[in-house]
């Protein structure tokens, strides 16, 4: 917002400041030290702790809180008068009275805002009569311990959970000294465990059990890096002691996450210390995998490669998109050096098709045209295919903030959601996989409104292809009432800047490429200022695409392998046998490949079948560069060393290259090439006709929702005890009404039957599941959900039988 600059007087000095801006920001901008406890830049002003009071001398107000006082022309402010200092000291003294002081043994000692401020400002010496009430700690949650005797009621946790996380799991109850932060009816925390509350707590009132530590704050080393779970790429700050992570937080103001994390980025790092980690290479001897030295293992891998070359067979690599750019560039070069025609690809990863075959033909490049900031600032946002709260928590936070704090709406169109629908306006509860039909309808409706830019190349053909997609038709296909469709069209039509957000993730029904294409077309037709943000599931998919590593499709590599043409198959962080959808015969392909090298952190299903297994560093053990969904470079720092004997992908690749006699470029060249990959690139933009196929609705029955859960998405997370501990157990979760209708109670055994496949599960009643839907979280290929899911992207209807 543009603001008029006005003159105000601070400590006798005239300064200019934006009228209506936050006085606190102006004062801090002048380098003045203004203590705050309840203020958080990410939240609406609260004015609770009264620590930030300054004296106003222009006859308006006396002591005013800097955090919640807007700048006004002619203001005269003093920040250091004896009265101001006394007010701070008095407030601190009062806060200490009602605070259980056990600083020497408190987790937060040395990192406690209250302690720091008392140290800085001191308190009056006089003793005040006061008796602190005893209140038990809430130990009922496996993750977060709440200590009301330390809580200073700054309200940050409550406000973050509500305004930013959109969960409102906790709230303030009671008056006066009885006021306390609590859950509804005091039941145990049952939330997203994003840690926003814990990380914002200025004192030791909220403690994360996994980070309970005896290591004092001042002995911890703090290092930041980029979280490498999902593609959001949040910056996190780890506190380390003797090389081990003792606590993870994020700093408000961090890019792109402004201090927010999700459960994985906050707690999921125990995977790194999983006892199941591979720490030594394995080679197959007499049919069994046995531990070997790096030299032996690399030698065996190189020998396998040489043999494949000698026998005239193909070399192929499939890598995880989590691969950092430098490592991916080296890998590509290795393969090119080994064999000009070597197949290189990344797995069947969610988001790959959306970018490569969905948006690339429209945008001229496999990239998004909207950034997260665009989404934050757009007049209207339409989120398609899924609830980012499950797959891309940071995007969820951005959406919640814009509506909760600034009243900017967003629409959500998805079949399966996890709570974000409560904040969406409108929410379109789609039949699974009908996003393309919705987008086609919107295209037609917005054009009839005259809202679209008809000068874009290909407009005519595209427009023609959506002509039959009337509201009535769309309502029939998507199952969304016509009135709701009209509301959405109206909202988009009225918005100058529209951001479309396309969620991808395993288990989300529908053809992601088709939906991406339709969304890309609409975003272009909406004209200047509008765009599309495609959210790949895993980090650095965009980066891997730009390295050119994804030249071949995973399906083609499989086919070549099944045909017996692949002599050397190199799987870097890919687990075809364990984690791929059933429709892709990963295990068979492995068996058909002559020699299989697996590079991974765990002994996956695939690794078990390999000839050589190379233990690799993962996630934040790596150093390098990635690219976020919107095209910005992110620098990953190795903040913890991998287990002894474990190497980073690029290092392994270089070793292999050396043995294979392939020359790889030096680090400077790789760095330069990496830097050149950043930024958005323009291609020729053109619309194309949409193919709006209407899937046959399945027969009667419940919809199966096997899409990823925020706690856990099915592969690496499986090895985090903290995450699996939180994720819903293997059960079928259903709405209370459905359970009642079926006569089921918690824990009853039920049979889920579809298309001849059948699984037996326990029932769990979960108020968050939408009626008509059965949620069976996808954990891994051996799990229930995957046994029901035949093919990725298909809409499944299941029958429920009591057992």
């Amino acid at each position, binding site marked *: 917002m543009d603001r008029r600059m006005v003159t105000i007087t601070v400590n006798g000095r005239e300064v200019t400041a934006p009228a209506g801006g936050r006085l606190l920001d102006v004062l801090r901008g002048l380098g003045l030290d203004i203590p705050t406890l309840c203020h958080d830049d990410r939240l609406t002003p609260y004015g609770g702790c009264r620590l930030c009071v300054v004296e106003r001398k222009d006859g308006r107000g006396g*002591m005013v809180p800097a955090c919640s006082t807007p700048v006004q022309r002619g203001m005269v402010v003093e920040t250091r008068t004896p*009265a101001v200092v006394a*007010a701070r000291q*008095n407030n601190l003294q*009062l806060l200490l009275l009602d605070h259980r002081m056990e600083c020497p043994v408190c987790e937060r000692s040395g990192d406690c805002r209250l302690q720091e401020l008392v140290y800085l400002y001191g308190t009056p010496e006089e003793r*005040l009569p006061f*008796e602190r009430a005893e209140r038990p700690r809430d130990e009922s949650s496996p993750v977060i311990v709440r200590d009301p005797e330390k809580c200073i009621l700054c309200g940050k946790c409550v406000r973050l959970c509500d305004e930013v996380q959109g969960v409102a799991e906790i709230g303030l109850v009671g008056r*006066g*000294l009885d006021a306390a932060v609590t859950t509804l009816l005091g039941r145990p925390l049952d939330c997203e465990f994003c840690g926003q509350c814990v990380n914002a707590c200025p004192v030791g009132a909220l403690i994360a059990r996994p980070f309970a530590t005896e290591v004092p704050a001042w002995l911890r080393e703090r290092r930041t890096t980029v979280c490498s779970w999902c593609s959001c790429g949040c910056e996190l700050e780890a506190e380390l002691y003797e090389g081990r992570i003792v606590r993870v937080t994020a700093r408000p103001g961090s890019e792109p996450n402004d201090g927010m994390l999700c459960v994985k980025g906050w707690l999921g790092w125990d995977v790194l210390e999983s006892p199941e980690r591979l720490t030594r290479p394995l080679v197959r001897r007499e049919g069994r995998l046995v531990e070997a030295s790096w030299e032996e293992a690399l030698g065996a891998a190189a020998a396998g490669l040489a043999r494949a070359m000698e026998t005239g067979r193909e070399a192929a690599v499939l890598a995880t998109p989590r691969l950092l750019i430098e490592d991916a560039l080296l890998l590509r070069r290795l393969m090119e050096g080994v064999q000009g025609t070597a197949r290189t690809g990344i797995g069947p990863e969610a988001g790959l098709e959306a970018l490569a075959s969905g948006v690339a033909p429209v945008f001229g490049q496999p990239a998004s045209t909207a950034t997260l900031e665009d989404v934050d600032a757009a007049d209207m946002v339409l989120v398609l295919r899924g609830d980012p709260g499950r797959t891309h928590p940071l995007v969820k936070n951005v959406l919640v903030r814009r509506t909760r704090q600034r009243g900017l709406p967003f629409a959500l169109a998805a079949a399966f959601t996890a709570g974000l629908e409560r904040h969406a306006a409108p929410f379109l509860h789609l039949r699974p996989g009908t996003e393309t039909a919705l987008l086609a309808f919107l295209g037609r409706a917005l054009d009839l409104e005259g809202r679209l830019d008809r000068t874009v190349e290909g407009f005519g053909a595209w427009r023609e292809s959506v002509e039959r997609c009337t509201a009535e038709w769309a309502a029939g296909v998507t199952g969304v009432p016509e009135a709701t469709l009209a509301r959405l069209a109206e909202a988009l039509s009225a918005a100058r800047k529209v951001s479309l957000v396309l969620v991808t993730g395993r288990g989300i029904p529908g053809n992601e490429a088709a939906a991406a294409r339709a969304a890309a077309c609409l975003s272009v037709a909406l004209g200047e200022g509008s765009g599309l943000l495609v959210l790949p599931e895993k980090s650095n998919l965009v980066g891997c695409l730009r390295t050119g590593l994804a030249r071949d499709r995973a399906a083609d590599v499989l086919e070549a392998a099944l045909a017996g043409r692949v002599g050397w198959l190199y799987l870097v962080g890919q687990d075809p046998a364990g984690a791929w959808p059933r429709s892709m015969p990963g295990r068979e392909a492995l068996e058909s490949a002559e020699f299989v090298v697996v590079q991974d952190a765990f002994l996956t299903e695939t690794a078990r079948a390999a000839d050589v297994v190379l233990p690799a560093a993962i996630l934040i053990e790596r150093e390098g560069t990635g690219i976020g969904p919107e095209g910005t470079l992110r620098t990953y720092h190795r903040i913890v060393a991998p287990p002894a004997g474990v190497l980073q992908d690029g290092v392994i690749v270089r070793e292999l290259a050396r043995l294979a006699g392939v020359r790889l470029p030096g680090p400077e060249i790789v760095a330069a090439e990496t830097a050149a990959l950043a930024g958005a690139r323009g291609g020729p933009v053109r619309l194309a006709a949409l193919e709006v196929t209407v899937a046959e609705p399945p027969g009667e029955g419940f919809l199966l929702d096997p899409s990823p859960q925020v706690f856990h998405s099915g592969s690496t997370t499986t090895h985090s005890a903290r995450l699996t501990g939180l994720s819903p157990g293997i059960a079928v979760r259903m709405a209370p009404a459905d359970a009642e209708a079926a006569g089921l109670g918690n824990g009853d055994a039920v049979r889920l039957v579809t298309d001849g496949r059948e699984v037996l599960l326990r029932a769990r009643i979960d108020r968050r599941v939408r009626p008509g839907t059965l949620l069976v979280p996808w954990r891994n290929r051996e799990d229930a959900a995957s046994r029901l899911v035949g093919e990725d992207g298909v809409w499944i209807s299941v029958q429920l039988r009591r057992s």
Partner: protein
Amino acid sequence: MKTNSEAAGDSRAVLDRAALAGIREAVRPVIEGRLAARRGAEPVRREVLVCHGGSCVSCHAVPVADVMERVIGERGLADRARVVRVGCMGLCDAGPLVLVVPDGVYYPRVNESLARRIVEEHLGAGTVLDEAELTWEGPGGEVLRSREVPFFARQLKIALRNCGVIDPGSLEEYVAADGYRALEKVLFEMEPGAVLDELKRSGLRGRGGAGFPAGLKWQFVRDARGDVRYVVCNADEGDPGAFMDRSILEGDPFSVIEAMTIAGRVIGSNQGYVYVRAEYPLAIERLGAALDRARQAGLLGCDILGSGFDFDVEIRIGAGAFVCGEETALMHSIEGKRGMPRPRPPFPAQKGLWNRPTLLNNVETWANVPPILLRGAEWYAAIGTARSKGTKVFALAGAVRNTGLVEVPMGISLREVVEELGGGIRSGLPFKAAQSGGPSGGCVPASAADVPVDYESLQELGAIMGSGGLIVMDEGTCMVELARFFMEFIVDESCGKCPPCRIGNRVMLNVLERITRGEGREEDLDLLERLGDHIRTSSLCGLGQTGPNPVLSTLRHFRQEYEVHVRERRCPAGQCRALLTYTIVEELCNGCHACTKACPAGAIAGELKHVHRIDQDVCIHCGACLNACPTGAIEAR
């Protein structure tokens, strides 16, 4: 409750301006007759106005009215007399209160048998029951009767103009009492700017406590940017002694509705809310009935009186926390959130309900609006003092003889209120001080009782006008105990958001408690002042900012009383039990053992039928013996 209109079998059609004029013409004589009622008037038909204010209802006014109606029926008096159930007449102390019109005779404390006699003798035979009539001894020893009684004679009723005069359930009576004329004027004769101008020139200030100029506030909301605006009536009335807002809603709900409608027109709002505390069921019921009636008559809803202006009002019920009367907390509560204040700015006029510009006024403020617009700013501004115009309603309580609701011109002295309207101190002890503004206010010592009462003068004395609670105290009241009492209230009512109020006030209370327990320390008085000052200046909302006022003002005017508590461990007013010495007057003791049994400390010994004695070393000063002794032999000093 049966209403006149029902009795009269009024039609329930939508009213237009002509219909309003017709009602005024037909019913006005009745209302005028009530206002002019005076001894000697020639009755054609009598009316008995039975006070149905909350206080009279709770002392059985409803059966009294029922009895009267029944007896009127039995005696065939229906064409000569009827019962009208009206709102609060003010003299709550004397309830159930009944006024016979046109004779202008008040009967206090009417019970069912007196009710029967009033009907039979006064209504039936035309004989005034002299011995039951409300009388008062005048300054010269003369007997003043009914309306001559200073409690009524000294009042000037603007906000309460219809309370006790009309049937609050009857739209017709309200209309006849000039109701909706102001709205008509605003809708058809005045530009919104002219209304604002009138209001500003009248000098009307908010009656909810802060005294902010009403016209200016209306202007701010009208000028605020935004397409949707709201109008809110604050009827939370949290000050424990105050009940003027309740009385207005119970006795004249249409006046608030009309005023809010006027505001809607002027500031450009189509929706109003009245926030009432749940403890006011009668007010909620009557306001709800009035809203229904206004809607039915087309005075709320779409196209009011054919003007094209739409407006409606909803009731929101609050859970009765004091802090919910604070405007930002109130709005949070209406929004369904926790009733907790937030910093201002932004003021409600800029960002109020659901972040839209919102005009929020107190019930009494609203009730003043229609008369001002009807009779003009000059008329209103001529009443009161230089900067405080008009009248103020006070809830008179405490040590005076007449407690109840009074409306007096600003600038009247406290002494007049206490001595003339209040009828002086009941106990006969000297008048010591009056607490104005309830728990947020302060005390005015008797020495300052001649200062004209207005916003500024009270502020200078360290008290505030507040919502109008006025508790009168005699020399038997301990000012430390008074401060402790109000501080206890504040501690219970703090919302807990900010530390000065949440923790600081509790510390203040702890200090006061130790002083009244006789454990005060020399430094305590300075501590109270330092902390009180801190809480006042750095709390978030008015609750905390005014919470220490009772302490600070008693410290200012009665510091010596505190010092006696601390230094001499003595309570001069004899109220702090822990500071009293209990002894047994030998002549009065009959040795019954009652005190021995009552004493929890076992400090009293004595043989049956012999004089007992209290062991001062063991006595814990609880005063249990005082209450137990049947002969009054225990002396506390």
